[in-house]
């Protein structure tokens, strides 16, 4: 008769069992280890020729490692520091073993490469990968995928080299054996091709900027979804992951996050080489970094009453930033108003909107090139225009009537549009029913033709003009009589 507590314990203990995937992974790791215990270790430490022991000791002395390193390095996979030691030991073993054993050793080493690949891939899920991912952090998973990406090609290369060697020596049995391994590895790669080649990651940083990382054929692409939460300045930086510097990539972050990123070794601007393909580790074609700031030339401003366009040029593609203020000297602080465009151009133009009229503004322009070199101008100023509040003055109104048409002519002292209201009744009161002819051209000498008039009739009319600031003027009532 199980008590409640027993039931509870049974239920509790049943949670979090080993997943199928974890079991596979466990076994793969165990198998790799026991394979080494089985036939690898004895061949070094028991059946060693004195020649080999001597060479091994020399190697260890050279690399300054202890015997413990050998044991540890045997477990090392590609990407680990000890991996190169692992490879070196294998080479020494090969060089010193008797000719008839060499092929066997080669096969065994090839087998180890295969197993390393299997081990790396054991982390990738096939059926229930989700359980693995939840048990580790996304970042870990990311690392593992990268590791698997490295392991597979190196394992394949190794197997093919071995095959070539065995073929040359005519060891048919060995070739057959290695063909089996290559097949196995190929199958493994095919099964995991989706894990390896494409993966997507969505990251949201502390400022709510989402970025999406896609890995397609070993190239990492980063997409950004900037949601307009506030008008925080977005800054392009080259993100150098501290634990994985060869995976540097360009990201856009909010300005407040810049110091934190710079602190761990990122730099402003896009990555110098874009995304670096870490498979090409051999050809170190690092281009010389751009350390020259762009030169700012030809700063100009064109103003209206409450907007201003600031334009300038730079000698290299860079972004655009204008700080502005009504106080001088302009000291840039976090409160300073600014407008920023992040696209990299050589001809820059920034519009400042919502300015006060008849006000002097001071501004500084700044451009940042793709390598994070920043140029800043000295202080400039502009004064917004005083708004026009004066209506145009209408003068010299005349009319030249014929039987059915007439031209109404007048002048204004500033550019303005034209309208003529007319009627046969007097007094003429302008309403929505009143007949009118208008023109929106801004001119000073106005001529408005009226047509479809009745003959020998007296018409009463009013002319009106409005300037660009919509200050309106109208005439008094006048009249003409058609012939």
């Amino acid at each position, binding site marked *: 008769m199980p*008590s*409640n*507590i*027993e039931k*509870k*314990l*049974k*239920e*509790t*203990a049943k*949670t*979090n*069992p*080993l997943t199928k995937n*974890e*079991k596979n*992974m*466990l*076994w793969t*790791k*165990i*198998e790799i*280890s*026991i*394979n080494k*215990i*089985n036939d690898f270790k004895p061949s070094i430490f028991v059946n060693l020729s004195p020649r080999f022991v001597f060479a091994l000791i020399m190697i260890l002395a050279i690399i300054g490692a202890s015997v413990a390193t050998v044991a540890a390095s045997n477990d090392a996979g590609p990407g680990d520091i000890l991996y190169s030691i692992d490879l070196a030991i294998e080479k020494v073993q090969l060089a010193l073993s008797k000719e008839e054993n060499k092929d066997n050793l080669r096969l065994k080493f090839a087998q180890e490469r295969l197993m390393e690949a299997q081990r790396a891939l054991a982390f990738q899920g096939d059926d229930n990968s989700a359980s693995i991912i939840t*048990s*580790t952090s996304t970042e870990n998973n990311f690392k593992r995928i990268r590791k698997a990406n490295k392991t597979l090609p190196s394992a394949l290369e190794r197997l093919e080299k071995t095959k070539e060697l065995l073929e040359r020596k005519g060891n048919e049995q060995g070739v057959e054996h290695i063909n089996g391994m290559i097949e196995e590895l190929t199958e493994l790669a095919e099964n995991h091709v989706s894990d390896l080649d494409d993966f997507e990651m969505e990251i949201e940083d502390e400022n709510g900027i989402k970025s999406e990382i896609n890995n397609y054929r070993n190239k990492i692409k980063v997409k950004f979804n900037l949601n307009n939460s506030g008008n925080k300045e977005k800054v392009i930086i080259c993100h150098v992951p501290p634990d994985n510097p060869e995976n540097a990539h360009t990201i856009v972050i909010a300005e407040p996050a810049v110091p934190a990123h710079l602190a761990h070794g990122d730099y402003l601007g896009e990555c110098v080489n874009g995304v670096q393909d870490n498979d090409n580790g051999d050809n170190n074609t690092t281009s010389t970094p751009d350390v020259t700031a762009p030169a700012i030339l030809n700063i100009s401003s064109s103003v209206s009453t409450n907007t201003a366009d600031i334009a300038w040029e730079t000698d290299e593609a860079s972004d655009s930033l204008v700080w502005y203020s009504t106080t001088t000297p302009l000291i840039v602080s976090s409160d300073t108003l600014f407008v920023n465009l992040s696209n990299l151009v050589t001809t820059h133009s920034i519009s400042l909107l919502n300015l006060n009229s008849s006000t002097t503004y001071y501004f500084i322009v700044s451009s940042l090139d793709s390598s994070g070199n920043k140029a800043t101008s000295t202080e400039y100023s502009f004064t917004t225009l005083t708004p026009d509040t004066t209506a145009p003055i209408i003068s010299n109104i005349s009319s030249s009537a014929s039987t059915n048409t007439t031209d109404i002519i007048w002048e204004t002292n500033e550019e303005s549009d034209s309208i003529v209201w007319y009627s046969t009744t007097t007094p003429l009161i302008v309403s929505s029913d009143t007949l009118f002819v208008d023109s929106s051209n801004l001119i000073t000498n106005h001529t408005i033709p009226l047509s479809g008039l009745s003959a020998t009739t007296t018409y009463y009319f009013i002319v009106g003009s409005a300037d660009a600031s919509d200050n309106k003027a109208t005439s008094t009532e006048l009249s003409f009589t058609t012939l």
Partner: protein
Amino acid sequence: MHQENNQELKTLVEQAQNGSKHAFKEIFDSLNDKFFAYIFSRTSNRDDALDICQESFIDLWKSLKRFRYKSDQSLNGFIFIIIKRKLYHYYKDKQKIISLDKLDEKQLIQPIEKQNDYGYMLKHIDTLTSNHQDIIRLRYWSQMTFNEIAAVLNITESAAKVRHHRALQKLKINLSKNNYAI
């Protein structure tokens, strides 16, 4: 799990002792759930538990030649000793300041995945004496019979039952003290 000694496991052990990886895989398959559950209940995170489980089986392979098959339970006991040793090293590395005697009073930070009932139960199990802890973990996490537990802990079956009963009483008292509804 088979209650009786079965010829199958004995054969597998013998084959594995002669170097059959295939046989060892079968042993692994039949035992991994049991021992992983026990290890996981005693470690602070899943990755560590997986590592310890892996190392324990590798050690089992290495030391299998020294094992003399008497019964299925004797194999469990043998593995259990290996696991205990692994766990001891794990804690030693993890908390060098805590002496071995006080190991069981440890206050390990429970990870996220052990929240809720799971974490709560384990926290209270952790307050029991090591003997009581083991018997509860083996009985519920490893789902062993009293017969198996007796072999693992090297006590008689009736002693295992008594100890189990007392451990449950203690746990119950602890839980009710903390107003945990049972």
